[in-house]
Structures are given as C-alpha cells and as structure tokens.
C-alpha cells in the first residue's frame, strides 16, 4: 500500500492546484458541463457500462457472501459435533462462488479497459482532426507544446482517472453500501462501531495531505529552480567550458541541491505518514470489532463464525474508504484534464468552404489584390488598402526589414488567414470562392522555416506527388542541388531522417524543401526566404534552377538578400506592415527612396 498511497499524495497536491485553478476560472456549473461532455463520449459505450456496473454489483455481493459462507462453515466446526455434510456442501458452494466472482471480475476489468481506451481514442481522434481544421491564428497563437500536452498528456490523465473511477469508484461505493447492509442485518452494535471509527482514516489522510501540500509545493519550486540551472549550465556546457566556469556552476548547483534535500525530506517523510496512520485507524476498527464481537458471542447474540466474518469485513472493507478519497481527487483531476481537451475540441474551426466554392484547376496565374486590409490583432493595423495586380507569369519580390510583415502577404495568398477587407482573386475568382485545397495545390511553397517529417528522404520529397518516378525524383534533386548530399547519406533516398529533420543541417533541410517543390512543378510559386540557410555559393547555383522554374509561373519571392531578386517584375518594399514602395529594380533605384538606401548600404 505504501507506494500507492504515496503517489496518491503526490497526485493530491497536484490535483489541488489544478482544481483550484479550475474553481477560480469556472463555477461548479462548468464542471457539470464537462461531465456532460464526458457522458456524450461514453454514451456510445453505454451498453458496456451498464454491464460493467451490473457486474460490479454481482462481484461485491459475491465477495461479501464468501466470508458468510466461511463463517457458517466455521460455526459447524465444533469439537465433538462436526456437521460434515453441511460443511461439504458449504465448501462446494464456495467453489462455485469463487469461480463466478473471478470470471465476473475479469470480464468487468476487460470491459472497463475497453470503454476507457475507446473513449480516449475517440477524443484523441477528434482533437487531432481539430488540429487539421483549426484556423492558423489559433495554432500560431499557441505553443505546440501546449496543444500537444492537451492531446497527449491530458488525454492520458483523463484515461487514468476514468479507468480508476470505473474500477474503484463503483466497486468501492457498492462495497461500502453492501458491507453496511450485511453488517446491519447481522449486528447493529458492531456496525455502529465500524461506522464510527472508519471515517477517521479519511480525516487522517486528508489532514496529512493538507499539511504536506505546502511542502510539496516548496519541493516542486526548488526542483524547478534546479532544473532551470541545469538547463542553463548543461544546455550551454560549451560556454561553461570555454570560460572555465565549472566550479562556480557546481557551487551554485550544490546550494540549490542542499535546499532541495531538506524540503524533499520533509515532503516525502510527512506524506509517507498517511499509510501508517490509516493502518493504525484500521487496527482500531479491528480491535473494536473483536471486542464487541466477542462480547456479543458471549451474550449469545452472535456465533463465532459470524464474528470471524465481521473481523474479515473489518480488515478488508475499511480499504475502500482509503481508496475512495484518492479516487475522488483522481476523478476531479480527470475532469479538469477533460475540460482542457474539450475546450480545444470546441475551438471555432476555420470558416467552412463557401457553398458555391469551385475547384481551381490549373491556374493561369493572374493574381489580384483589390483594396485589401488585414491585421492579426484589431488594434494594430498591419496591411491597409493594398492593391496589387499580377499578370500570369510575373515575378513579384517582397523585401524589407525582418518583422515588417512580408510573411503576412504569403499567409493571405495561401489563405492561411482571410483578409479583413477587400478581395484577393486568382484568375478572376475571389479565393474565398475557391476550395482551399485546389487553391493551395496551385502554389508551390518553400518556407524559411524548413519542416521535414520523420520518414525517408523520398517520403519527404514526394509529398506533393506520391506517384513520382525514380528518375523524376533524381532529376528534381539534381536541380535543387540536393542529389549530391543525399547520395552520400547512408541509405541514399531511403535514409530515414529523424524528428524535425534530425541529423541534417539547416541548409540541407532547405535544399530538401526546394527539391519538394521542384518535383511538384505547381503553376504558381511562393518562396519565403527559401535560401536563407544556404551559403551564397550554393545559393547562386540554385538561383539558376529557380530562374528556370519561375519562367512562365507567377511567383512571389520574399528575400533579404537583394542580390537574388533584382530581376523580379515588381518589387514590393515593405516597412512596418505597409508597402511603402512598389516597382521594378530600376524604377525603385531611380526613386532613390528606402529601397535605394537599403541597396546601397
């Protein structure tokens, strides 16, 4: 028990924090709301749940019946007048009860597992589906760690709580009720003793949990402090070494370590008192039952067998009391976790496709921005009354200092965000009347922020065209100058790259992203700092490939190296979210404005 109780205490403290947070934010109303949501997911498995609860009832009844059978049998064992046929029939019945109980237990466990894991699976599937339809502003506005922790950790916690709730809460409550019923039936006096003493263990456990709460808080704070130091020093071990800072770092570490030792000892020791304390209360109950039982036997109110049956109840059935207090906090925590997932699942999805949305086949590449305005946050104006007219096949460059909103234009073109005002149209159709898929399929995009998935190099390159042939792949890779390094990888195109590109350098990852687009050959292109991590020499070589690719394709290029965009048909110069200049390289130089200053600096 020790171990379990101890972790319960740990959880207790966590839950308190969480449930406090919840109560701060929401009323009990919303807890009810969450509970209703949970029921919504459970409803699918309602049949199974009813079976499970029925089984729990049967199991409890049977387990409570066992001590009675044995007690009755013991009563038959009186020296000199043993009733062998009765004992024999009682024991045979006992075997039947045991087998029935164990089978029912197993079935109930399996059903509970099934319901729990399926509910969590359904919730996860739904949450993941949500990720794919959420508007970009939600995903950009929340750290990925936070969302991952909802889909993974919260769901997991919820599953644990749900499973525990199923297996222990129901059986626990039914056991307590059942035991009480049996006890009242056989002896009111003993029942009174048990009822009076048992809840003591609950109080003791609660008392200790409350007292240790602040100790655990201090422990986790100190731990956090230590982790921060470890993160800083070991994360930058190279700097530490370069400056011979090792000893000072260790001193700093030891100071925190010592504090941690003290508060950990307190927290662990005091929380570990729960177990001995509740066990002590249980012993009291046991002693109480023994003495009242024995006296009742002498007075002739009860048989010895029944007394042993009561002793058995006393030692076995004070247990659910200890467990239920843990289960309640566990369930509360599960609800808090569920609330966080549901909140995510109920986020507003992106605006649905218009009813009359058409599929954009192979775009000509005429892009019109007509008086568009857009801002991420209402009170910080970004793009206002912006007009742009791109003829098919034109190359548009967007330049300007970092953070000036170049990427915003791309967000709008790809319809990652919708404009607040005005329209963007492709080939004369408002893009809000095109299906998102068909619009995006017409663009090939290379971002500065390279993203590769876990899988082979081939999987990554053929993302847009899974049916590409080997020779097409190699051709694209050669054009993007990635073939030579892919060849040198341990298994060539079938090399598996780890999470987020793993062992590849930033430049190599960018080359792979370029290869991806070179293979797809879409009608329009978006290059957002596509070569920023590639050294200038390789970049120059890729430029020629890009130049070929861009021929006859409407292209948007964001760059900070001005050398790469001189040949663009139109250069947009952006600053603080506004387009301040617009024209060809020569025109802009002649104007002698911001662009010219940037160029000559």
């Amino acid at each position, binding site marked *: 028990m020790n171990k379990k109780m101890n972790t319960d205490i740990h959880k207790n403290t966590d839950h308190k924090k969480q449930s406090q947070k919840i109560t701060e934010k929401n009323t009990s109303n919303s807890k009810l709301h969450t509970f209703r949501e949970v029921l919504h997911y459970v409803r699918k498995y309602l049949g199974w749940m009813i079976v499970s609860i029925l089984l729990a009832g049967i199991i409890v009844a049977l387990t409570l019946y066992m001590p009675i059978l044995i007690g009755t049998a013991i009563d038959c064992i009186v020296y000199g007048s043993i009733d062998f046929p009765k004992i024999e029939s009682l024991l045979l019945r*006992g075997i039947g009860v045991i087998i029935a109980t164990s089978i029912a237990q197993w079935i109930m466990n399996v059903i509970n597992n099934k319901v729990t894991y399926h509910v969590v699976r359904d919730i996860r599937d739904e949450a993941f589906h949500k990720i794919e339809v959420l508007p970009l502003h939600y995903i950009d506005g929340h750290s990925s760690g936070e969302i991952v922790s909802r889909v993974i950790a919260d769901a997991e916690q919820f599953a644990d709580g749900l499973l525990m709730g199923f297996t222990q809460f129901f059986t626990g409550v039914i056991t307590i009720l059942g035991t009480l019923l049996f006890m009242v039936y056989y002896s009111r006096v003993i029942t009174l003793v048990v009822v009076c003493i048992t809840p003591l263990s609950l109080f003791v456990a609660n008392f200790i949990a409350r007292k240790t709460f602040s100790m655990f808080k201090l422990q986790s704070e100190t731990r956090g402090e230590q982790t921060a130091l470890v993160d800083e020093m070991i994360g930058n071990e190279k700097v530490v070494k370069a400056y011979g800072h090792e000893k000072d770092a260790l001193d700093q570490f030891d100071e925190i370590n010592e504090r941690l*030792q003290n508060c950990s000892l307190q927290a662990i020791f005091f929380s570990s008192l729960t177990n001995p304390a509740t066990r002590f209360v249980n012993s009291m109950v046991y002693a109480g039952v023994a003495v009242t039982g024995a006296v009742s036997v002498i007075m002739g109110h009860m048989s010895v067998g029944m007394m042993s049956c009561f002793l058995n109840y006393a030692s076995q059935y004070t247990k659910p009391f200890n467990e239920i207090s843990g289960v309640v906090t566990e369930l509360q925590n599960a609800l808090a976790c569920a609330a966080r997932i549901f909140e995510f699942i109920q986020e507003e999805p992106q605006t649905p496709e218009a009813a009359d949305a058409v599929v954009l086949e192979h775009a000509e590449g005429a892009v019109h921005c007509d008086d568009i305005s857009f801002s991420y946050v209402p009170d910080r104006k970004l793009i206002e009354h912006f007009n742009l007219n791109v003829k098919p096949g034109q190359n548009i460059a967007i330049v300007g200092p970092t953070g000036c909103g170049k990427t915003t234009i791309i967000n709008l073109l790809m319809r990652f965000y919708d404009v607040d005002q005005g329209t963007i149209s492709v080939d004369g159709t408002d893009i809000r009347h095109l299906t998102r898929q068909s619009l995006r399929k017409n663009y090939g995009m290379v971002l500065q922020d390279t993203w590769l998935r876990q899988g082979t190099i081939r999987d990554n390159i053929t993302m847009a065209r899974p049916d590409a042939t080997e020779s097409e792949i190699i051709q694209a890779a050669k054009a993007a100058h990635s073939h030579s390094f892919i060849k040198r990888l341990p298994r060539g195109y079938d090399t598996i790259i780890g999470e*987020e590109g793993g062992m590849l350098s930033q430049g190599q990852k960018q080359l792979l992203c370029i290869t991806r687009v070179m293979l797809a050959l879409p009608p329009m292109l978006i290059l957002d700092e596509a070569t920023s991590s590639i*050294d200038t020499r390789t970049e120059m070589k890729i430029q020629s490939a890009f130049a070929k690719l861009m021929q006859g394709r409407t292209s948007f290029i964001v760059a900070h190296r001005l050398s790469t965009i001189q040949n663009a048909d139109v250069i947009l110069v952006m600053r603080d979210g506004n387009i301040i200049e617009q024209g060809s390289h020569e025109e802009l130089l002649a104007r002698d404005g911001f662009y010219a200053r940037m160029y000559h600096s």
Partner: protein
Amino acid sequence: MRKLLVYLKDYKKECVLAPLFKMLEASFELIVPLVCASIIDVGIANSDQPYIYKMCLVLIGLALVGLASSITAQFFAAKAAVGFATQLRHALFAHIQRFSFTEIDTLGTSTMITRMTSDVNQAQTGVNMVLRLFLRSPFVVFGAMLMAFTIDVRSALIFVVAILLLFMVVFSITLVNIPMIRKVQQKLDQVLNLTRENLLGVRVIRAFCKEEDEVRRFVARNEALTKQQKKSGSISALMNPVTYVIINIAILRLIWTGTLQVEAGILTQGQVIALYNYMSQILVELIKLANLIITLNKALASGNRIADVFEMSSSMTYPEELSQKSVDILSKENGTDTVTFRHVSLNYHNAEEEALTDIDFSAKKGEIIGIIGGTGSGKSSLVNMIPRYYDATGGEVLLHGIPVRDYPEKELTRRIGMVLQKAVLFKGTIASNLQLGRRDATEAEMWDAIRVAQAEDIVKGKGGLRAKIDQGGKNLSGGQRQRMTIARALIKKPEILILDDSASALDMATDARLRAAIRELPDKPTVFIVSQRTSAIKDADQIIVLDDGRMVGRGTHDSLLTDCEVYREIYDSQYRSNTPKEAQHE
C-alpha cells in the same frame, strides 16, 4: 545500477534501520491473528469478559507499537533515499561538467537534463520503496506461513502450495506485462510525435493539402496504441481474479483440513480462524509486492541510464601542469608563431567523412586570420581545435610551438578568448556575465571591453553594469547578445581571440567599427574571424578558404581573388558587379 549504490554509503545506518523497523512492524501485525484466536478459544470459551477487554488492549498496544516503528522506518527510508538522490545529482552534475565537447555532442542536452532530473527522481523513489517494502512484504508472506507452521503443520502445507502458486502467477503476470507497458509507451510516443509534427508543419501540410492523409495516419497510429493498451490491460486484468481464486480456494481447503484436525482434536476453532486470517494477510502483501516490482523496474531503468552517463568518461585528459621543457620554450618565445596547424585532420566521433583534411598554416602574434567557406565547410571545426575542444585525429595543433595537448586546461582557457556562434548569456547581471571572463575584472576593465565590443550604448541603455540579464540573455536582441559575448571574451585579455561567426547579426558599419577596435587592442592578440561574409574578413592579414573540409586557398583578399576560384565565387555571390547588395538590418 549497482555502481550507483556507492552514493548510499553515507546512509548505511538508515539503510539497515529502515527495513529493520519495517520488519518489526510486520511482526506485530503477525501477532494479531494469534490474539484473536485466544479471544475466541479462551475469552469466549470461558465467557471471560475481562480477558476479552485485556486482549483488546493488547491489540491496541500492538497497533501503537506498530505505528511507532512504522513512522521510524518511514523517516529513515526517506532520509536515505533523499540523501542518495542529492549525492547522486551532485556527482552527476560534476561528472557532466568534466565532459569534453565530443561527449556533449554525443549525449545531447535534453538527454543530460532528463538524466539529471526525472531519472534521478525515479531512482530516489526506487530506493525509498525498496527500503520500505522489499523486506517487509516477503517477511509478512513468509512470516504468515511460519506462524501457520507453529499452529499446525498439515494446514501450513496449504500455505506453502498457495504461496508458491501466487508467486508464480503474480510474477509471471508482472513480467509479461512489463515489456507490454513499454510497447504502449512507444506507441504513445509515436502518437505524440505525429501530433507535434502536424503542429510544427501545419503550413506545409496545408500547402500540400495533406490534411486528410494526416488524419488517416493519426487514426491508424491511435488505433494501434489503443490495441496495445487493451492487450496490456487484459493481461493485468487477470491479476485480481486469478489471485482471488488461488487464495479463496486455499481458504476453503484450509477450512476442510481444519475441520478434520478439529475432529481429531489437534486444532481449536479459534486456531482455524487464525489460519484463515493469515491467509487473508498474504494476499494484500503480494499485490503490494507486484506493484513494487513495477516501480523497481522503472527505477532500475532510470538507474541504468544514469550509470551509462557515469560510464562515459571524458575522452580528453589534460596534464596537471606544463612540463619544464615547455615552460622554457614559453619563457623565451619570441617571434615564434602563436598558432600552428601541422597537417591537421579531424574526424568527429562516428562520422563517416572527415570534417577537416590536412589543414596546414600558422599565425603570428597580432595577426588577423579570416576564415571563410560555405555551410558545413569546417570553419567552426577549425577554430574549435585551437582551444582543444576537439583533438586532431591527424597532425598536430601547436600553441607557441608546444602541442595543445601538453597544456593544462586552465592554461588554454586563460590564453584563448572564444566567442561561440551561439551567443549565450547567463542569468544574472551584465557584470556577473563579464566576470565569467575574468573573476577579478575591475569596472574600468569592463567598460574598456564593452567599448571595444561596441556595446557601450547597450549597457548604458540597460542601466549600467548592474543591469539584470534574464536566462539565456532573452532580454537582449541577438545582435546585443553577440556584442556582450564579445566583451566577455575581451575581458580575459586573451593572447588569441576567436570570433566564430559571432558578428553575424551586426550591421556592416558596427561590424567594421568592431574590427577596427579589435585591431587597435593594446595586447595585440592573434585574432581569428570566422564569417560567411567576405566583407568581414577582407582586411585580414591571412584568409583561409575552406571547402568541404579542405583548405582550398590561403592568402590576402587580393591574392585570393586572382588565385582562388572558390573565394572568387563567394565574393561574386555577395558583390556582383562590385556593388554591395546585401540588405542589412539588425
């Protein structure tokens, strides 16, 4: 794991006392059924109420003594476990600090951090649990069996059989389940990975219209996870029913044997009840033991991971001090080359190809050496070999004519000021960060270094030397951080100053002023400047051009423009038609 036990050596007393008191507690528990038996056989049989009350007091007394010894045991166990973890963390931190760059690269930061935090915590829980339970539970189980033997040998044999069966069942279920739990964890990791991937790559996935494919992938992986969870769950679901069957069948058997023994006059009714109670005690303890095994298994895995880190020793050893011969050479060094690379090559641990091949050059006092080349051409590797962050796998690196391997670590740190590519500051103040360079630096010296690093306006803007720096220097911009790290290196007044692409976030003008100021430094250090930009190095006394780890050119800007094709290409890519075409912004 066994090796980690040395960190318990200061807690020998606690390690003995904790289990001892636990066993004491268990012994008192084992007496309880005997007391009950005598209540029935003596108290009830003789209708002796005072005896019953006396026995009840004995029960309460037993519970009290049990409580006291249990609390004592918990205290010693907690003390030993926490002390163990504290010493382990200290040793681990100190050990990691001794690693050379090679080990840091292989292990990776996040691994080291999890070893230091969650793994140590797991190990602590493991030690705590072992001290509390590992002796207690078997003691109760076998104690109950022994007590049964003292009551009646024939009945006790049922205990033997039942315990053997229970052990077999509980342990085989646990052992079968452990690898399954691990598989569940792996499947969960895959689900987590896919979720992360989809969030980070949301733009690419939507751009390529892969949403539906991704959902399909997720559903498949999620289903695989659920299947594995159910599989593992249905194994552990066996635990309760099977143990229930064994114990209860044993109880029935016990009653039957008991009946026969009572008939034969060997046992009393109360003794049969005592035997029955002992059997019930066993079940509770066995289930605890099974839980303990799972905890222990986790703790052992963590312990092994920690031990792996301890096993990894620094691949680099430094001499205690310079040899007499070296001291002689250093004392009369005059006009010798400060830094010499003699046909140096470098092959990183586990790498297939050499990072550097046959690098050969030397640099004099006061010279400025520029190093240029494409991404992955080996520029950083080259300068990292000067302070001996990595050892040459071929050839030799010399400092004042003495191989760097012959220098004690402190000497190298003192003589070389290194500014790393990643500009990192520690939490503290500006002054505390600068003092990392030299602990006893005066304020005047700090301001000197700050001025050279072109950081005066930053420090003044932040409110002087006492201004707070957040963790990682997050309250400064990239360019500001770079200048602060340069100041930190300058304050050492090093013989050799290395700037590893550490001015990349500075605008051209500031960069130029920085270089001019460095050239004017009174101590005339040898300066290495690594850069991708030709503008940053074109005034250098020597420029080394690297391509795929080979030195493809060495000379001044002008000579390289005519002799070295790679250099010319780099230059052209940045200065086509002789006009600067880089948009600069900080």
